């Protein structure tokens, strides 16, 4: 999905987004959250990989329920409105490191499930994940080796099936795809 990728910045190099863009993002995020009557504050900063929007304040928990759905919705709408279908530096919304914590947790669960799948020689299915989260899992498990991953289902949220690779004998080779 176009809006979920970093894509090329609309102008200039990978390094910096135009300063007006960062200010626009911050203003728009502030307007969206303020208009909802939520006591939160949004601050946008330009980082190498993304325009990061950090949300803080008393009402932040309302955006964090259902595994951070509110943050995801805000992120989606910011990208959609700022870029209007054009490509640009990805706008990423976080709230006191919530997203990072969740990402770490997803990868950890995936790694544990993969170990189990490998040990039992049985396929294992993870909970539904968004494309970004699935990418994290595919990459982590490719590195782990010994299992294959594929996405199952339709739509934005899909599940990942972890399939153990049949390995005759006990020996485990280091992963050979680079």
């Amino acid at each position, binding site marked *: 999905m176009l809006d979920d990728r970093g894509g090329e910045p609309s102008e200039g190099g990978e390094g910096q987004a135009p300063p007006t863009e960062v200010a626009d993002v911050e203003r728009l995020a502030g307007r969206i959250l303020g*208009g*909802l*009557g*939520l006591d939160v504050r949004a601050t946008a900063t330009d980082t190498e990989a993304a325009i990061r929007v950090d949300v803080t304040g008393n009402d932040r928990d309302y955006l964090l329920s259902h595994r951070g759905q*509110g943050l*995801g*919705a*805000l992120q*989606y709408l910011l990208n959609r409105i700022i870029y209007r279908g054009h490509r640009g530096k990805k706008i990423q919304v976080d709230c006191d490191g919530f997203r990072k914590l969740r990402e770490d947790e997803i990868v950890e669960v995936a790694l544990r499930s993969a170990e189990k799948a490998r040990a039992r020689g049985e396929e294992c299915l993870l909970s539904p994940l968004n494309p970004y989260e699935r990418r994290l899992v595919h990459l982590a498990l490719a590195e782990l080796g010994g299992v294959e991953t594929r996405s199952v289902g339709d739509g*934005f949220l899909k599940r990942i099936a972890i399939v153990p690779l049949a390995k005759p004998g006990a020996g485990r080779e280091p992963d050979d795809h680079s």
Partner: protein
Amino acid sequence: MTEPDIKSWVESMARDLVDHPDAVSVTSFEDEGVLVFEVTVDPSEVGRVIGRQGRTVQAVRTLLEAAGARHARYYELEIVE
């Protein structure tokens, strides 16, 4: 915090999403404790506010849900097709 003007918020979100903001209008009514918003946009832009697989309208609904939890209200959003 007093309950904000959610109707204006819905209107401004819809305007931000379309190319013809002048064609945006929002009506609201109360239905058994639920505040329902009906959004009308230029017919050519209905798909734009709904988004692929309904994702755009769903994101707006998710934020409305967060606001509803905060203000102890139920909000519903419909796009008039």
